[in-house]
């Protein structure tokens, strides 16, 4: 009996060791996946979309999965990043890197503004306040036609070449564009994994686990939330900026409420509170959307059904369930 249970547990132990290895080198492993990814996708633009929405979802998950706050207004952060990057290029002829930095800053500043107002509420109220504020942001950008193009979106974000440290990359070539954007996403993932492993990462978890205890332990819960919201905004702002560079336009739909809802779905689908879960969720969501819409216009029905099945039977999400299988 003892021997039997030993042989049964051995593979688990082995996979646990593998899991530890994978966990330690998660940024490296992710990079490898990112490198081969466009080669196995049906078309490169989809791979780019998955990268950008994956980053958006990862940024959202910092707040949702790690801190435990459900925002329904993250489109405002994503959209602000995209618009500010676009405006910097179209109206001020800034170089691409400065415009991208502007997008990150824009997402962070917008997060600071929304966060300052919303952070004292929690649960459903937090979701509602963030949603209402993101609607305000939508109208702000919608009305500022001279700057944003209003309903038509912001056009003319033409970046033909990207030069990094003297190297010139042809941004028109889809595969090159993918790798340039992938480099940013990998840097962002690396930064995120540093944040999660930092002292502040421990505070984020403590606040999620027990607010009253975190406060009694000497942590300023409100400030911790605000900083996390701002960090989340910076990641989403970067995702938005990359979206602007990728699409060459910023459609007004980027600020729509669906963009806020979609990222919630992606996170739940992949697994909230796991490092790669939101990325997996974004990939599955966009693949389904693109593949199913090839044979039916009712693709949302299928995606919705998959979502419901996932939430009902795999509440840990796709990636979360896989992690549990490997490392119970």
């Amino acid at each position, binding site marked *: 009996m003892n021997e039997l249970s030993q042989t049964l547990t051995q593979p688990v132990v082995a996979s646990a060791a593998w899991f530890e290895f994978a966990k330690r080198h998660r940024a490296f492993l992710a990079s490898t996946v990112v490198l081969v990814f466009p080669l196995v996708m049906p078309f490169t633009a989809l791979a780019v979309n998955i990268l950008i929405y994956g980053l958006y979802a990862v940024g959202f998950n910092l707040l949702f999965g790690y801190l435990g706050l459900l925002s329904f207004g993250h489109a405002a952060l994503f959209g602000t990043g995209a618009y500010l990057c676009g405006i910097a290029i179209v109206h001020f002829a800034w170089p691409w890197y400065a415009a991208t930095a502007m997008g990150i800053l824009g997402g962070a500043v917008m997060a600071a503004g929304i966060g300052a107002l919303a952070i004292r509420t929690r649960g459903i109220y937090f979701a509602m306040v963030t949603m209402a504020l993101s609607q305000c942001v939508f109208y702000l950008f919608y009305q500022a036609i001279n700057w944003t193009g209003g309903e038509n979106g912001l056009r003319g974000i033409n970046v033909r070449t990207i030069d990094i440290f003297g190297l010139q990359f042809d941004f028109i070539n889809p595969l090159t564009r993918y790798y340039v954007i992938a480099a940013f996403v990998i840097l962002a993932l690396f930064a995120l994994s540093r944040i999660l*492993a930092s*002292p502040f*990462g421990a505070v984020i978890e403590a606040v999620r*686990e027990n607010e*009253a*205890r975190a406060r*009694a*332990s*000497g942590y300023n819960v409100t400030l911790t939330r605000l900083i996390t919201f701002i960090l989340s905004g910076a990641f989403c702002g970067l995702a938005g900026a990359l979206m602007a560079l990728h699409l060459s336009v910023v459609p007004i739909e980027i600020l729509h409420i669906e963009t806020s809802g979609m990222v919630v779905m992606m996170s739940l689908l992949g697994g909230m509170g796991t490092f790669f879960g939101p990325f997996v969720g974004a990939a599955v969501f966009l693949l389904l959307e693109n593949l199913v819409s090839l044979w039916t216009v009712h693709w949302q029905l299928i995606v919705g059904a998959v979502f419901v099945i996932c939430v009902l039977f795999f509440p840990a999400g796709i990636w979360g369930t896989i992690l549990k299988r490997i490392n119970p």
Partner: protein
Amino acid sequence: MTTLTGISSKVILRTSGVSKTFGKFVALNNISAEFSRDAITSIIGPNGAGKSTYFNLLSGAFPPSSGKVEFEGRDVTNVAQHEFAHMGIAKSFQITNVFPLLTTRENVRVGLQAFVSRYEIWRPRAKLPGLVDKADELLALVGLWDRRERLAKELAHGEQRALEIGMALAANPRLLLLDEPTAGMSPEETRVMMDLIVKLARERTVILVEHKMKLVMGISDRVLVLHHGELLAEGTPTEVRQNEQVKRVYLGQREH
């Protein structure tokens, strides 16, 4: 010896005429009391006496409606809760409050980290020196060292309460506030906890709130009795036990 700073004063904590109302309900009415630095003080009283409200005022969970709370001569009436740990006041809650999905060791380590690093986002926390060793030391003190790798939610009730005390000790507090530290514990667990409290009180001031009068009489130097939000009696355990009003309040009260 100077008493100007209040640090060396015998009184560590003082409340002056504190009251707390919730809507029209008066939970605490005009309580003035002093807590001595080298004593275990117990706050007792029957259900609804206002013990927990008083505890929450002392520990900064919320401010009083009126009155003043002073710690080591400093007015702390409106100081935010998270500042209390940094001033040297730590507490354990009446209802167990741990970080359930973190390991027992991480619970204490996070408690220690609050005094080293709170907002650093780049340096790995594994590189903060000494925190894990210090956490293990505290876990050994509260008898949880062999449970250090377990998730806090997997611990037995008594163990979680001990863990909470370990987390409170992480603040290296001069004043330790305990709200019914033995609530829901078995007699054996209670005995262990009481021994621990006496041990901890050798190096710091302990104030505890307790429902079970019998339990604290043996270890307390001073006892405050609350009843209907008023301070009914105050004194040594013997004085309090002989107090006619206290007897009347506790008479016929079933001791749980």
